[in-house]
């Protein structure tokens, strides 16, 4: 074999290996579906409680394409995003403001930590008292939990800004306002994005819980609990699956935006 053909065959090998590596995450998924399928057909579990993965996926696809699952899906997505945007619009400015003054942050640190440690679902009854069982109530409680995460992360981003960059800006003649807008704000962005990403995740979690607990016309949380009540297990599993898929893609979306926008992160 000539040197060049060895090299090119190496390259093909490397290329196909890289391709194969990209498929690795699928192995876990296939394994889960395999185990699920084996248990479902083995008869260990009552088939009324556990449909096969294929039947579940079938329900998911027909539900999304023709059935009533799509409106539920859209309602949940809309609530999640409204909650997230409310939280971000209020949380980022407050977080940055808190982070810019150590005294201010220390004054509110305990409060933020306390409510961050309180399970948001424990506050749902309180929110019902204030806002009733309206749609707004579900959005507000989700926004509240996301808000805490966003505030805390934005503040941390500002607090942990590199002193040397602040000093560099000062020595170049930047006044306090320019240091804030040219350095502090941008320094805090990577951490702020971590807060935003956690914020959208918690928004989805709380929206689903609120839909189950408070009740609603449409929404995946309600769909899951309703399907369980009438033992429509195929629909229940399909709804759980679509909720998971939604959560996963929300996270991916935020990671992508972060990577494009905060190009310097970790460099």
């Amino acid at each position: 074999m000539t040197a060049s053909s060895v090299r090119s065959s190496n390259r093909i090998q490397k290329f196909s290996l890289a391709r194969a590596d990209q498929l690795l995450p699928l192995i876990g998924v296939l394994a889960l579906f395999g185990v699920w399928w084996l248990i479902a057909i083995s008869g260990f579990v009552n088939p009324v409680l556990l449909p096969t993965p294929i039947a579940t996926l079938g329900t998911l696809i027909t539900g999304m394409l023709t059935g009533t699952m799509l409106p539920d899906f859209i309602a949940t997505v809309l609530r999640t995003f409204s909650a997230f945007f409310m939280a971000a619009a209020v949380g980022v400015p407050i977080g940055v403001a808190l982070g810019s003054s150590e005294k201010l942050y220390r004054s509110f640190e305990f409060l933020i930590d306390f409510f961050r440690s309180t399970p948001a679902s424990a506050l749902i009854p309180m929110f019902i008292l204030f806002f009733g069982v309206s749609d707004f109530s579900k959005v507000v409680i989700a926004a509240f939990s996301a808000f805490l995460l966003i505030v805390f992360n934005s503040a941390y981003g500002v607090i942990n800004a590199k002193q040397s960059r602040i000093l560099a800006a000062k020595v170049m003649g930047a006044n306090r306002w320019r240091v804030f807008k040219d350095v502090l704000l941008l320094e805090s962005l990577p951490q702020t994005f971590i807060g935003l990403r956690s914020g959208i995740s918690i928004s989805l979690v709380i929206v689903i819980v609120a839909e189950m607990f408070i009740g609603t016309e449409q929404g995946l949380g309600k769909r899951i609990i309703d399907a369980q009540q009438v033992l429509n297990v195929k629909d229940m599993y399909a709804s759980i699956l679509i909720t998971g898929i939604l959560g996963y893609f929300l996270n991916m979306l935020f990671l992508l935006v972060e990577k494009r926008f905060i190009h310097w992160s970790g460099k």
Partner: protein
Amino acid sequence: MTRDAVLTPTIAPPEHFISVQGLCKSFAGQPLYEDFNLDLPNNQLVSVFGPNGCGKSTLINMISGLIPIDRGEIRIHGKPIRRAKIGYVFQNYRDSMFPWMSAYDNIAYPLRVKGMPEPECRDRVERLISTFNIRLDLKRYPYSFSGGQQQLVSILRALVADPEVLFLDEPFSALDFETTLFVRDKLQEIFMATGIPMLMVVHNLEEAVFLADTVLLLSKRPTHLVEAVPFQVPRPRTPDTLTSPEFIETSRHCLEIFRQEMRK
């Protein structure tokens, strides 16, 4: 402005680019500088060398106004610090450049802070990079350059606003040997072309001597000036300078003083 001009007697232009009188600074009750005096003759490149913890960086940070002093007076070209135009090159380019701005915007930043109109900023930056024959794609972000190129960009950033003094805090310490040579040559070129006086902290004796007109040797704390060693080999200095008898003699002398200080 006019009032100052009346109050300060303008007999002759100051012959020192930096003049420090009675400087005192302590950290946590421990005196670091006590009644420290320093006069640096104009148009020189001065390097500062001394044992660890003697406050070399603290000294240039105080002179450049980055950290406050306890007592004493510091003048740059006869003026108080805040009225002097200074440039400062940080030790760690990675932590002092703004990674969210392109290299170009980093260099132009000091001009924009001063509120200079955009076309004029562009002119100034372009003139600077053509003067020093910089062949870098400045549209790229700083982190996409090599360490030496990043440090060069941060030197350009410190130069763009026409400083009257350039401070450099261990500018080579984050670089490997090869890029140190590259940045060192560029720095020499810049000094020869602009004549901007420079005060540079270095952690390596060879580097302290190689570029300098004067090497300041500092003692252990409380820090005082042991000797200001002149080194007057003409520029440009080349790798041959490193083997010249003058260089070897000056280095030997500095090392000897340094050793004596360490024994004290």
